């Protein structure tokens, strides 16, 4: 065995002259080199022998890294896992897509058959930034890719929309309701999408909506607690509905102690 070594002092290998590399060969074949710029090149590196920290390496420069079944063409951080094991889909992408049975994973409309969450009975919070008027929409019968910045880029039907103003609008949820006392000190007991009521005389009231109805084709219902009386919807407007409470015997409008209004529609 031949050895090149120093004795208690530095050992210098010098490829003299500009542009010359230091080369390492085995059986006449180059296995590694150190260029004049300091770049170390090797045919293989035994990772089990490495210690210390790796330098920062651009993900774009890494190849063959990862596990089977996961690919990435990201050029910035898209997913991170923090020290509390929270998996974060981070800002930069627009969509979190689930694709099923389609080679084009961007065809989000072919979503997984089932999207499941499990947390041993605990509640889940699903929310979006609705602070500026956005909403959460549940769309059925969509057949196209939701690929633009426009949240309405679908050809399906919004069956339920949870709005920033607190309403859950659909054809099957109440758009507004109120329970109020129309006797004595008139007061609203409880309500939804109701900003106020007008008291315009005995048994004559308006329910004002916090957020207007889309049109006047909505269905409004009214009822009351007292017997021998009737409640009627008098006039529908996009911002309010006028209701009245009548007493049969007196053939006149009469204050209602428990008066209810319920509104369905767009």
């Amino acid at each position, binding site marked *: 065995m031949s050895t090149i070594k120093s004795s208690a002092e530095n050992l210098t290998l010098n490829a003299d002259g500009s542009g010359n590399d230091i080369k390492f060969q085995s059986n006449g074949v180059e296995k590694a080199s150190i260029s004049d710029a300091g770049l170390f090149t090797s045919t293989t590196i035994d990772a089990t022998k490495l210690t210390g920290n790796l330098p920062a390496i651009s993900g774009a420069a890494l190849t063959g890294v990862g596990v089977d079944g996961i690919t990435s063409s990201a050029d910035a951080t898209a997913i991170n896992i923090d020290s509390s094991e929270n998996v974060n889909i981070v800002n930069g992408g627009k969509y979190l897509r689930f694709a099923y049975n389609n080679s084009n994973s961007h065809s989000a409309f072919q979503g997984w058959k089932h999207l499941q969450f499990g947390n041993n009975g605990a509640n889940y919070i699903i929310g979006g930034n609705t602070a500026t*008027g956005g909403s959460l929409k549940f769309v059925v019968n969509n057949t196209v890719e939701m690929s633009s910045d426009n949240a309405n880029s679908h050809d399906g039907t919004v069956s339920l929309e949870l709005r920033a103003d607190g309403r859950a609008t659909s054809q099957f949820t109440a758009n507004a309701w109120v329970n109020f006392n129309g006797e004595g000190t008139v007061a609203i007991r409880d309500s939804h999408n109701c900003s106020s009521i007008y008291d315009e005389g005995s048994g004559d009231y308006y329910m004002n909506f916090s957020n207007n109805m889309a049109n006047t084709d909505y269905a409004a219902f009214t009822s009351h607690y007292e017997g021998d009386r009737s409640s009627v919807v008098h006039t529908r407007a996009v911002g309010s509905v006028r209701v009245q409470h009548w007493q049969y015997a007196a053939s006149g409008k009469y204050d209602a102690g428990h008066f209810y209004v319920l509104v369905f529609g767009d």
Partner: protein
Amino acid sequence: MKIIYPSTNDDGEAILGQLIPAPKFLASLEGTEEEKLIHIANKDLPTGTKYEITDADLSDRTFRNAWEYTAGASEKTSADLSLDDQLKYNHITQQEYDDANGG
């Protein structure tokens, strides 16, 4: 606290209207109670309606249909809600706000 305003019945006779705020809606607003009531007046009363904010006891409704509105010293006039307030309180969407601002 409530809002009173002049109105007319179906026969065209002058009557007093009461605007009773919904507690949940009131709680969603910011500001003093008076500022909240002004917001509701601007939102629910037709623009230009004279009104007053009062805590008067109006629980005796024996002659309710004969009540009439008389202007007081603190009378106000309802105005349109600003676009900023409409957006802030989700009466309009960001898109509607942008459209209204020419965006």
